């Protein structure tokens, strides 16, 4: 009975925490790429492209485009589709002067027919624009400054295909390297000219749009996602010597702006169990809660308290990903006298240790 009440309280606290977070949005100061306006391809899909008949890119450009597809697949860190060359692919990559790009475009993309197929086009090596002549680095016998890296530009176009708009940079563009999908393309040797994998703010939007591969994968540091931690205990009124089990559950907050990431369980992170004497202010860490096999995003530990304490779980902000810290609503576990003297000392055992005994 006590257990059920505690679990209900924990659930209520969890909901309250989520409601409190409703006004929280994704990081404003530095945001993921915006979405592009065309439809999305399906998560986990394989998008096969071929070279357009009569518009075949030179061999070294083809190699670079295929490498860009591999670079994209290696760096999406999400369930975003992968791109792959296949002779019979539905989608096309073309090369020519008469491609569908606008007057200043060195390359362009059309994903309007997602989730069925897409088109990507590259202007010809040596094409004369108002802004200058286009040189592709891979097609030069000696690479010169001012050339454009096919792999980098292809990655930008593939980013569009996967649903990314151009990253919104700071006005001084000091954050240019946080995204490959950029409004202004850079030529050699300007920083970022040869980036061959998606950067953190590209990845952030791909994660938002397509979800994570599993609950243990890291969230891009371009995100700033609120988390929600709930804590439950098997009994809130015990005698000295009794053992109770604390179960923490960590999730990404359930907010609309979090798209596919909302309410995702968060596994294999660091969650600690904390206690304090009722009425005191500061918390003391009791132990790190080991991951539980119970369900994704759960952490569990067995404790034998000898004193009445308030308890809470605390999820520490990871230093290498875009998740915020969170703590559970506190609750009291009341401990009454022990049956035999001397009373046992406090001990902490994880469920795993318990199982090993």
């Amino acid at each position: 009975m006590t257990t059920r009440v505690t679990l209900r309280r924990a659930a209520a606290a969890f909901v309250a925490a989520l409601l409190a977070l409703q006004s929280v949005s994704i990081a404003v100061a530095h945001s993921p790429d915006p979405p592009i306006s065309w439809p999305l391809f399906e998560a986990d899909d394989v998008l096969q492209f071929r070279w357009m008949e009569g518009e075949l890119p030179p061999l070294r450009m083809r190699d670079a485009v295929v490498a860009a597809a591999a670079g994209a697949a290696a760096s999406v860190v999400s369930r975003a589709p992968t791109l792959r060359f296949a002779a019979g692919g539905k989608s096309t990559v073309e090369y020519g002067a008469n491609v569908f790009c606008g007057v200043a475009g060195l390359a362009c993309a059309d994903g309007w027919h997602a989730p069925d197929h897409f088109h990507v086009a590259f202007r010809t090596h040596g094409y004369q624009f108002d802004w200058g002549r286009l040189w592709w680095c891979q097609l030069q016998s000696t690479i010169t400054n001012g050339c454009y890296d096919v792999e980098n530009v292809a990655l930008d176009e593939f980013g569009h295909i996967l649903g990314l708009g151009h990253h919104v940079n700071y006005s001084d563009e000091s954050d240019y390297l946080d995204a490959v999908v950029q409004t202004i393309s850079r030529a050699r040797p300007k920083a970022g000219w040869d980036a061959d994998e998606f950067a953190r703010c590209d990845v952030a939007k791909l994660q938002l749009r397509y979800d994570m591969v599993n609950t243990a994968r890291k969230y891009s540091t371009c995100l700033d996602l609120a988390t929600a931690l709930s804590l439950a205990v098997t009994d809130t009124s015990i005698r000295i010597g009794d053992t109770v089990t604390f179960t923490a559950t960590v999730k990404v907050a359930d907010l609309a702006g979090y798209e596919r990431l909302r309410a995702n369980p968060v596994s294999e992170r660091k969650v600690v169990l904390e206690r304090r004497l009722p009425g005191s202010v500061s918390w003391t860490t009791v132990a790190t809660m080991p991951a539980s096999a119970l369900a994704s995003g759960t952490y569990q530990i067995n404790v034998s308290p000898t004193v009445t304490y308030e308890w809470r779980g605390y999820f520490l902000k990871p230093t290498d990903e875009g998740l915020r810290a969170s703590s559970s609503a506190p609750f009291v576990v009341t401990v009454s006298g022990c049956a035999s003297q001397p009373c046992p000392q406090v001990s902490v055992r994880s469920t795993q240790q318990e199982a090993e005994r």
Partner: protein
Amino acid sequence: MTTSARRAHEVLVLAIGLAVGACTAAGPPTASMLPPPPSPSAVAAVATPAATATEADASVAPATPAAVSDAPLAVLVVGAERHPGEVGGFTFGRYSQSAPWLPATALDSIRVPADAELRVELDDRATIDGWVARLATSADVTADAVTGLAEGGGAVVAFNAPVPGDWVVSVTITYGDGLGSGAYFWHLIVE
């Protein structure tokens, strides 16, 4: 002749082409693989490039590329004058385009007084959700030293001319309704 100056000519060429095409068309095209019909500003004839084939695989581009990818047009309003901007990289509707920082040599120069208020307006294909104005000197053709000039989150793009000098000003506009964004360029000689 820069692109904007060329556009009026191109619209005429396009109109003639469409009229001729209407007389000679022989059956409907296959719809799925064809681009949509170009808008009047989706230009036809661009440059007549003559690539010097000094580098491997260099090819000469034909004189009549059929560009269809297009963004809303932007004009810089200075007092009573309206100056069309050149669009570089953009995403709009079904297309995205990669382009570099457009150098002064690709732009018509506009003389403006130092205290002028500059406004940017779009055509009726898009509204404005936000904008960032940046500038680099005209000599800095790859914008190695780009700096922020002004930015705003509303539909009105208005800012003061930079200090006297020879500048390329870029305004990146985020279109309303999630339609994308585009970078527009002007060559300003601020007196």
